C-alpha cells in the first residue's frame, strides 16, 4: 500500500490548495471536504515513553518536564538517553564480589546494575556514577547540579511578579470606573466566585495590597557586577588538547541547563517523551483522526482517511509521452466506499469555478456567524474560527488531457471484500462505451484517456490535471436533518487530481 500510493505520481488537491497523495489526506464527513495535515488542527492526545511504552497523563508529563521519570518500581525500567550519542541507554547487570564486613575472609557476590549505550559504548561507569543495587535508578540519584541557579531564578521570578502586580495596581487605580462596570456585567452569572468572574472578564486575579508588595520588593537584592571575569586558562597554550574529550554542540544542547564542556561531566538524560496526536477539522471542529490512548496500540478511534471515502486513481498503462503527439493512457478508478458511486469528468477550470461559487456562499455565511460580540464577552462566546486562506495550486500543467463528455457517467459498484476472491466473472451489466471503459472488475474500472504533451516542455515531466465528480452517500445524520428524514443523503462531490505521466520525449520525425 505504501509503495502504491506513497509517491508523487498521483496527487490530489486538498481543499486548502496543497497537493498530496491520497494516503496523506483526510476526509471530513461533516464538511464533506478533503483535509490535509496542513489545514487540520493538530492536538496532543497523550504522552508516552517510546522505550517502555508507559503512558503519562499530560499534567504529570508537564510537571516532569516531558522527561520520563517512572513513579513506581515496576517492570518498567527507568528510561534514559545516552548523553554521548543521544540513543537510548540499556541496563546491564553484573556480579560484583564484595568482602563481607563482618567476616573479612568471606566474599559475597552481589548483583549490581549500570547503564550502558549499545551504540557508542558509553556507560555510567565512564563518568564515575556508582553502580546501582536495583535495576531502576531513582531520578534524584543523578540530579542535575545547578540548584544554586534554580534558587536565584525563583527569587527573580517572584520579584518580576511583584513588579507586574505593582504596575497593574497603578493602572487599575487609574481605570477604576471602567473595571467596576465590568464586574457588574457578570454578577448575574450563577455559581461563579469573584475570582472566576475576574478571569472571565479577562482580568487577572485580585491583587494584594500595594503596601505589602512594596515591602516584599524592598527585600530583593539585585545582582552585583564584578570586575573579575573568568580568565583564559594559561595552560591552553602549552597543553595538548584531546578533542575527543570535548563535547559537541549537540551533546551540550541536549542538556541545556548545564551544557557540559567535558565528556566527564555528561550525565544520563531522562528520555524525552513522544506524543500521540489527534487531528481536528478546523471548520466543524470534528475529529478526522484520533488514535487510541494506549501507546502500544496502532489503532484509531476515529480515522477519516480519504482513501476510505474518495475514489482512488491509479495509472495502469502509459504510452511514452511525445511532445505534441496524442498518447493513450489507461487510468484505474477504485470505489472504496460501501455504496455505488457515479463518476463524471470535468476540466480543472470548471471545477475551480464551481468551488469559487461555493466558497463565496460559504464565506457569506461565516461573516454573519462571527457577528459583533462586545469585546468583554468575547471569551464567553464561541471562539472565532480562523481558517487560512486557500493557496493557489503550485504545479504547472505540461500536458493536455482529453476527457470524456461531462454527461457520460461511469458507475462504480460498492467495495465488496468477498468479490476479491470471486472468479465467476461479471454478473452486473453496465452499459458502458467500450471506447472509454476498457476493463471492469468488482469496484474497479479502467478508463482510457488521451494525453497530448505540450511541445515546449520536452525533457520535463508531463503533468496532467483534471477533476471528477463522484456521488457520495453521507451516512452521518446532522441534527437538523435527523428530525425530518432519516435516510442517508446522497451528495455529489468533486475532486481535482494531478498526475505525472513521465518525461516528455522529443518526436522522432
Amino acid at each position, binding site marked *: 500500500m505504501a509503495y502504491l500510493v506513497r509517491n*508523487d505520481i498521483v496527487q490530489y488537491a486538498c481543499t486548502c490548495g496543497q497537493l498530496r497523495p491520497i494516503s496523506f489526506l483526510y476526509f471530513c464527513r461533516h464538511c464533506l471536504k478533503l483535509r490535509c495535515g496542513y489545514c487540520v488542527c493538530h492536538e496532543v492526545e497523550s504522552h508516552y515513553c517510546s522505550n517502555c511504552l508507559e503512558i503519562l497523563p499530560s499534567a504529570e508529563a*508537564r510537571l516532569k518536564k516531558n522527561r520520563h521519570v517512572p513513579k513506581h518500581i515496576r517492570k518498567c525500567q527507568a528510561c534514559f538517553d545516552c548523553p554521548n550519542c543521544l540513543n537510548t541507554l540499556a541496563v546491564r547487570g553484573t556480579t560484583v564480589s564484595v568482602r563481607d564486613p563482618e567476616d573479612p575472609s568471606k566474599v559475597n557476590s552481589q548483583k549490581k546494575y549500570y547503564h550502558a549505550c549499545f551504540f557508542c559504548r558509553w556507560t555510567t561507569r565512564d563518568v564515575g556514577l556508582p553502580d546501582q543495587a536495583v535495576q531502576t535508578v531513582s531520578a534524584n540519584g543523578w540530579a542535575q547540579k545547578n540548584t544554586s*541557579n534554580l534558587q536565584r531564578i525563583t527569587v527573580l521570578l517572584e520579584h*518580576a511578579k511583584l513588579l507586574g502586580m505593582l504596575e497593574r495596581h497603578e493602572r487599575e487605580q487609574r481605570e477604576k470606573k471602567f473595571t467596576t462596570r465590568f464586574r457588574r456585567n457578570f454578577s448575574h452569572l450563577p455559581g461563579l466566585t469573584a475570582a472566576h468572574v475576574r478571569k472571565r472578564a479577562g482580568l487577572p486575579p485580585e491583587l494584594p495590597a500595594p503596601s505589602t508588595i512594596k515591602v516584599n520588593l524592598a527585600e530583593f537584592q539585585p545582582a552585583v557586577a564584578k570586575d573579575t571575569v573568568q580568565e583564559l586558562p594559561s595552560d591552553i597554550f602549552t597543553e595538548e588538547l584531546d578533542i575527543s574529550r570535548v563535547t559537541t554542540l549537540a551533546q551540550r544542547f541536549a542538556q541545556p541547563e548545564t551544557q557540559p564542556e567535558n565528556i566527564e561531566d555528561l550525565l544520563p538524560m531522562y528520555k524525552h517523551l513522544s506524543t500521540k496526536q489527534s487531528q481536528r477539522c478546523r471548520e466543524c471542529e470534528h475529529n478526522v483522526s484520533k488514535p487510541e490512548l494506549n501507546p502500544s496500540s496502532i489503532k484509531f478511534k476515529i480515522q477519516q482517511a480519504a482513501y476510505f471515502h474518495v475514489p482512488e486513481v491509479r495509472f495502469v498503462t502509459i504510452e511514452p509521452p511525445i511532445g505534441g503527439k496524442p498518447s493513450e493512457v489507461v487510468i484505474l478508478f477504485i470505489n472504496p466506499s460501501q455504496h455505488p458511486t457515479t463518476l463524471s469528468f470535468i476540466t480543472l477550470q470548471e471545477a475551480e469555478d464551481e468551488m469559487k461559487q461555493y466558497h463565496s456562499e460559504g464565506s457569506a455565511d461565516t461573516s454573519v456567524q462571527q457577528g459583533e460580540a462586545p469585546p468583554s464577552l468575547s471569551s464567553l462566546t464561541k471562539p472565532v474560527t480562523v481558517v487560512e486562506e486557500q493557496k493557489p495550486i503550485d504545479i504547472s500543467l505540461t500536458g493536455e488531457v482529453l476527457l470524456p463528455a461531462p454527461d457520460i457517467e461511469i458507475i462504480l459498484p460498492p467495495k465488496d471484500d468477498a468479490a476479491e476472491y470471486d472468479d465467476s466473472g461479471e454478473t452486473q451489466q453496465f452499459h458502458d462505451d467500450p471506447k472509454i471503459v476498457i476493463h471492469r472488475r468488482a469496484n474497479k474500472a479502467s478508463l482510457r484517456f488521451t494525453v497530448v504533451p505540450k511541445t515546449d516542455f520536452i525533457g520535463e515531466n508531463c503533468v496532467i490535471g483534471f477533476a471528477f465528480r463522484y456521488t457520495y452517500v453521507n451516512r452521518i445524520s446532522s441534527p437538523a436533518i435527523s428530525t425530518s428524514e432519516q435516510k442517508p443523503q446522497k451528495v455529489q462531490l468533486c475532486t481535482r487530481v494531478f498526475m505525472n505521466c513521465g518525461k516528455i520525449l522529443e518526436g522522432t520525425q
Partner: protein
Amino acid sequence: MIKTYYESGSLSTERQAVVIEFGNCYTKVGFAGEAGPRSIVPSEVRSLKDGRTRKVFDAVKADDQYNLLVEFIHNLYFRHLLVSPKDRRVVVVESVLCPTAIREMLAKVFFVHFEVSSLLFVPSHVVALSTLGVNTALVVDMGATETVVIPVCEGVAVLHAWQAQPLAAKAVEGQISDMLKEREKSDPLEAEGYNNLTEKIIEDIKVRACFVTTLERTQKAREGKPCPCPPSINYLVGPGSNKINISGDVRENAFNILFEQDADQISVSTMMLDAITKCPIDMRKPLAENILLIGGTSMAVGMKARIQEELNFLVSSPQYSEKLKLRTFKFHTPPAKENYTAWLGGAIYGATDIVSTRSLSKEAYLKDRKVPDWVSLIYNTLNEGVKRSV
C-alpha cells in the same frame, strides 16, 4: 451547543505560556516560569521532498518563508514542547532590530495557523536584565550573524546608541574556513579532508578547538614577535574519517577577527565603547559598571577576559582617552548560560501578569491583522486620540 462555564480550560489554572527565542542558527523553546529551556534546536527544517535541510530564516519569498515557519514551529510544539499550540499564550523574545516583515509573518503563523490565544513580543536586550534584577546595563548580544550592543537605562533601551556589526559566529567561522583553505594549498596530502568541510564541521571546529587568545599575545604577534603557537590537533572529517590538521594558529587566532579594527576602526570592543559614548554623560559610569554579555558566541573560552582586556586597553588609548574618562568595567554573571539568558528573561516575564495585560490578543489581531510595533507612529504616540482616529 451551549458550553458550561466550567468546561473550557481557561477557567481552571492558567496554562503556562510558551516562550520562544528564534535565532538565526539555534532556537530556544520552553515554558514561562521555568529555569531553563526545554530544548535548544537548530533553526532548520528538513524538506520532505528531497531530504535537504534548510535554514528557517533563509527564505527569500514570503510564501516560502511562511511554509518554513509553519513546519518549524509545528516541530517545536510536537517534538520538543509536546503541547497543543491552540489557545495557549506565546511569548517571543526578539531583537528590537528584528525586521517588521518577520514579526508580521510570525504573528500570522501563530494566530492564523496555530490559533494561539495571545502573542507577546519582548525585546531580548531589555528582558535579559530581568535575569539580574538590575535596571541599567550595557547589553551585548553576540549571536550567530550579528553582535548587537544596546544600552538599557532604567528598563528602557537607549535606541539611538545602538551598535550592530556582523562580528559574530559567522565571521569567526568564515575566518576558520579561510585559514584552513590557506593550509590546504600547502598540504596536498590532506586535500580530501579539506574538501569535505561543511558549515557544521567548521562550527564544530570553532566550538571544540578554538579559543579567544589574550590581547598581549595578539599585540606581540602584530609587532612581529609572535609567541610560540599552542599545540595543533588532528581532526577527523566526514564519513571517510579523513584527517586534517588544525594548527595552533587557527585555534588561537580565529576569534581575533572580532577584535581587529577594520577600515572604520570598528571591533566588538569599540562598539561597546561607542555605545557608551553616545549615551548622556551621567549614564556612562553605571553602564560601564554593569556589562551583560549574552548570546552563544560570548561563551567561547576566554571571550570575557579578552573583552575586558580590550576595554581597559582602549579607554587609555588615544582613540578614546579624550572622550571617555572611565577606568573600571564590571561584568554581570546571570544565573544561566549565556546562550539562553535572553530566553530566561522572556520566561521570567512570561510568568508575570504582563503576559495577560500586554499581549496582543487573537481577537485584536484578527480585527486589524497588524502587530503593534515601536517603529510605527500609530502605536507609538502618547496622544491616545491620534491612535483611535487612525
